[in-house]
């Protein structure tokens, strides 16, 4: 399983706008490059990233071969209440990873 680094404040006030940052290890092989043997390396990219806040979709993005390796996303959301943020990355060759982080809102 790939490694992911997620950052968000562990605690926030209700209504506060917080920054969420997510970085995941992935080669994002474009499908256009040749390997050492001269053959084209098959495409292997993450195609979709999404973030759900207690089940509700708050952020999503489609990724394409031009996105660099180890894609990084930063976005803002309004802290409505304590709950969990679920991050999902899906891509080629059945790549799927889910990480869950909890946030406490007072």
């Amino acid at each position, binding site marked *: 399983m790939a*490694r992911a*680094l997620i*950052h968000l404040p562990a605690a926030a006030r209700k209504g506060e706008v917080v920054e969420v940052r997510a*970085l995941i*290890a992935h*080669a994002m092989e474009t499908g256009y490059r040749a390997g050492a043997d001269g053959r084209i390396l098959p495409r292997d990219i993450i195609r979709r990233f999404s973030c759900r806040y207690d089940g509700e979709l708050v952020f999503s993005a489609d990724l394409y071969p031009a996105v*660099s390796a180890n894609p*990084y996303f*930063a976005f803002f959301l309004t802290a409505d209440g304590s709950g969990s943020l679920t991050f999902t990355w899906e891509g080629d060759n059945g790549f799927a990873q889910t990480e869950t982080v909890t946030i406490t809102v007072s």
Partner: protein
Amino acid sequence: MTARGAAWAFSWGLLASAGALAQGAADARRSGFDSMSPRIQAMQRDDQQNPGMLWVADGEALWTKVAGTSASCAHCHGDAGQTMRGVAARYPDWDKIDRRPVNLAQRINLCRTRHQQVPPLPPESAELLGLEAYVGHQSRGMPLTPSPAKELDAPREHGHRQWEQRIGQLNLSCALCHDQLPGRVLGGATIPQGHVNGYPTYRLEWQGLGSLQRRIRNCVIGVRAEPPAFHSDEMVELELYLTQRSAGLKVETPAVRP
């Protein structure tokens, strides 16, 4: 004077005697960090944004993982945050058993073969880079303090000579660009002073983490010369000289470079 203070004084003494970087050099030397764009600087500063931290996290997991049937790194070395602090700032160092200089990656592999009884990790493998980055990260913010071992003087001098030696079809030496023309532009890229305080480094060009030796091979291939093999004596000698040349600059591992 503390042991570290002594090592310091020694390294500066060597620098002055080498003459290459003597007067005013301490002020003129700049980490590659300073010539990067603010966006890439921000990327390095922020641990959640710095992709090198992915390797550091891998290394942290490997540190406590039992290798083969014997022990993990932590079994002997304990908490890396304490025992590994300052270690990477000193390497390459002298290996008393093999009687040759070894860099940090080779030291990790020697630990594997001698103490853990497992095969060495291949150069530039994710595991080796992870461990190297994790150990290197423990020295972040500390000045590079080359090992004061006397035995290293001769190999370091070999490294210095390689640095000045013209090589390849383009007939260039390292010194021609990195000592004489830093700050000028070559093929659209700014020539750095070539300091070694951030390795292993995440290079945007590589889209991954790589060692100093990978970086050196890049340059050598660039001047169309035959690059030395990973972990070869020539490479370690060059590393020894480069660490001396960058002595005192603060460790940035894992650095981000364009």
